[in-house]
């Protein structure tokens, strides 16, 4: 079963690295290289997070010369500022945990069925 990749503001902030990136470029626009320099993780991984943020509509990327500059799109972050929304991420986590548990139950049930059929 695949969980549909969500591309919204909540997906954007669900990851700690992405939250850090948002915080970083919220102060001023930055190019991809200087963002990557601030993290211990690999450049492609940072790049991947930046891409997700762009897909979530949180940041815009502008190419100037050889450099790609990332800038925050504040309007789209407004949604999160709504006062109940921080709770959403926590409930998503809980449902993820429930779903994972459910899937293990389900596969156990299927195994038992097979065993029974085999006799």
């Amino acid at each position: 079963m695949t969980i549909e990749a969500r591309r919204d503001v909540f997906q954007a902030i669900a990851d700690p690295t992405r939250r850090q990136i948002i915080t970083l470029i919220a102060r001023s626009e930055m190019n991809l290289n200087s963002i990557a320099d601030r993290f211990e993780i690999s450049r492609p991984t940072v790049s991947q997070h930046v891409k997700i943020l762009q897909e979530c509509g949180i940041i815009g990327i502008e190419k100037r010369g050889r450099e790609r500059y990332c800038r925050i799109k504040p309007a789209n972050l407004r949604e999160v500022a709504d006062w109940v929304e921080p709770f959403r991420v926590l409930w998503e986590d809980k449902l993820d945990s429930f779903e994972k548990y459910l899937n293990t139950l389900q596969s156990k049930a299927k195994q038992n069925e097979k065993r029974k059929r085999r006799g």
Partner: protein
Amino acid sequence: MKKENEEAKRTITLTRTFNAPVKLVWEAWTQPEHIALWWGPKGMEVKVVEHDFRVGGRWEYTMDMPDGSQFISDGVYSVIVTLEKVFSSANFKPMTAGVEIQALFEDKGDKTNFTFNVIHPTEEYCEQQKKMGIYNGWGSVFNRLETVLSSLIAR
């Protein structure tokens, strides 16, 4: 209409389709031996202190935090319709109190559509709680982001 809008504003709705028949989803969601295994974050042991699964019955789950504090979830069931829905009041101490949670199950053969609503109390009530410091438990997860957000939105 105005009231409905207001309630929508303080409701979080999550929907999922689970790859399991409704009977299994129902059992995993409502039976204490199952709940203990998924309720907590990974690696966190959940104790089911009370689980009186009937309308008016009380439930309480606790988790011991690494720092020695305790995280307590409790509530009272208000609606139970087997294989269909469970509504309950809920408190998540020390984070929030006075929430209503609604779990709705829809039989789709070998799949189950699941809708989960969390209705938060009125904004005034939450403001009050904030002043009492009940939200402190959220820690710094959102604090930094919130600071950034509010400055951005003020622009």
